[in-house]
């Protein structure tokens, strides 16, 4: 596992305690997991995602991500209805390791209550939290 300094955390994202990120785009939100989370998991072998149209509340599990010997739940950083899922992760789950913020995105949602994002962390706060973990 890498030292935190060697990981990247884009400025334009918001981060959740469970290491998901969201990117707000014209009323919708894209969700994935952070560089820290993918590094902790190691080689990702499988990502289980919901179907388009399913609705999840903030904090609810929407899928799982698996490495060879571990499984982690994926939690909604904010609530909403799934409007798209990254189907390409089915064949290439390694994208989450290689490019967690772009090619490795997981789902896109239509937020129920966009203000829920206010409880999420910006990069600096998230980094502080990570330093507390190590």
């Amino acid at each position, binding site marked *: 596992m890498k030292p935190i300094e060697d990981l990247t955390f884009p400025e334009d994202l918001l981060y959740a305690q469970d290491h998901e990120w969201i990117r707000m785009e014209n009323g919708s939100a894209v969700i994935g997991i952070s560089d820290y989370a993918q590094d902790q998991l190691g080689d990702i072998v499988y990502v*289980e995602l919901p179907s388009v149209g399913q609705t999840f509340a903030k904090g609810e599990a929407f899928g799982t991500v698996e490495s*060879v010997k571990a*499984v982690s739940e994926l939690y909604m950083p904010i609530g909403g209805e799934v409007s798209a899922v990254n189907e390409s992760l089915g064949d290439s789950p390694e994208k989450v390791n290689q490019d967690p913020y772009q090619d490795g995105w997981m789902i896109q949602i239509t937020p129920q209550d966009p203000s829920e994002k206010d409880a999420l962390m910006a990069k600096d706060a998230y980094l502080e939290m990570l330093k507390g973990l190590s």
Partner: protein
Amino acid sequence: MRYLPHTDEEIAEMLQAVGADSIEDLFAQIPEECRCRVRLNLPEALTEWELNAHMDGLAGQTASAGTCKNYMGAGSYEHFIPAVIPHLLSRGEFVTSYTPYQPEMSQGTLQGIYEYQTLTARLLGMEVANASMYDGASALAEALLMACRVTRKNRVAVSRAVHPHYRRVAATYFGPTGYALEEFDFGKDGRSDPNAFSGGKDLAAVAVQSPNFFGGIEDLAAWAEAAHAAGALFIAAFTEPLAYGLLKSPGSLGADITCGEGQSLGIPQSFGGPGLGMFAAKMEFVRSMPGRLVGKTTDMDGKTGFVLTLSTREQHIRREKATSNICTNNSLCALCAAMYMAVLGNTGFKALSKLNLDKSAYLKDRLAEKGFSPAFSAPTFNEFTVKADPDFETRRRALMEKGIVAGVPLAPYYPALSDHYVFCVTETKTQDDLDALVSEVTS
């Protein structure tokens, strides 16, 4: 004692290294109130030779293929076992190794199980098979639970022509789950009755056994269609996999999950266990499957090798969210079945399967001539059901004294089928045996 290598001197040296005065000291932490107060009340140790005599005595008071002519099947089948199988299977490297969690040191078991998975998938016409379950009954229970997971529905329907013990085991597994397990009836032809089965949106699975408990070959294609029309998975169960040397495979007829007992494949009957739970499914359901899986991969040098894989489904990783709690399975029995399938090959398996049909059909015809009419019209494989006269049970009991077990009575399982008996004939019986049986039951 020959299994305990320590000499008194060694024990003294070891105690010194540990810093204890006596072995009892090592247990000093255990509170007095937790201790055994008296010596275990068990028989005194036997020498190897005394044990042999004792066990020979017990084995001698148990009937077996060697001492009687048995015409019962019902989930446990007498087949010839080629000498190479017990010979190879008794190799200490197979018998005394652990679950292959350390693949570099377990390639023998791993390749052997990968081959078993392949042979099983091909026999049953399925895309993927696991490394084994305990037995046919728990395999069916697990298949039904898996269908509930896959479909996220909570009701399953099982034919009453499925082995009664399998249905009882499934009921035990379903007991505390809150899922509904329903049974549906069979028709006059001795096959599961499509009119007795009710679909519905909440139906997760339909399970039918073929050949069924009465010996009848089910119309699996029609059942697959009916199950799918109801939005349910179709589970094909079996107790006699040898049938698929001759019959169309469940997978080719549309089964989503196929499961059953593999004891027929070279495994001794051993009073009902250990046998082999065979379990196969469509690849799309693999992540919902219970049990271990072996996969092919390569090592750091690019050399082919095998590992346990997709382990995140299992209890030691996913814990309470695992697809099953199964851990130790029946690996050595799976290896045995693989050896048996390899020994027979395509040619031998087909020929043996046909021979079982021929011998069974011979007895069925001879008995019919003597008034034991077939109870059902459905085609059969190596088991069939006859209706006998009410006084046959007395005759049957008398024959046991002569070392002949003439069929399984259905009355204990199906009160409406009193005087019905299921006979099983395998390759182990000669024409002379069958003629003798016919004359005994009719004399």
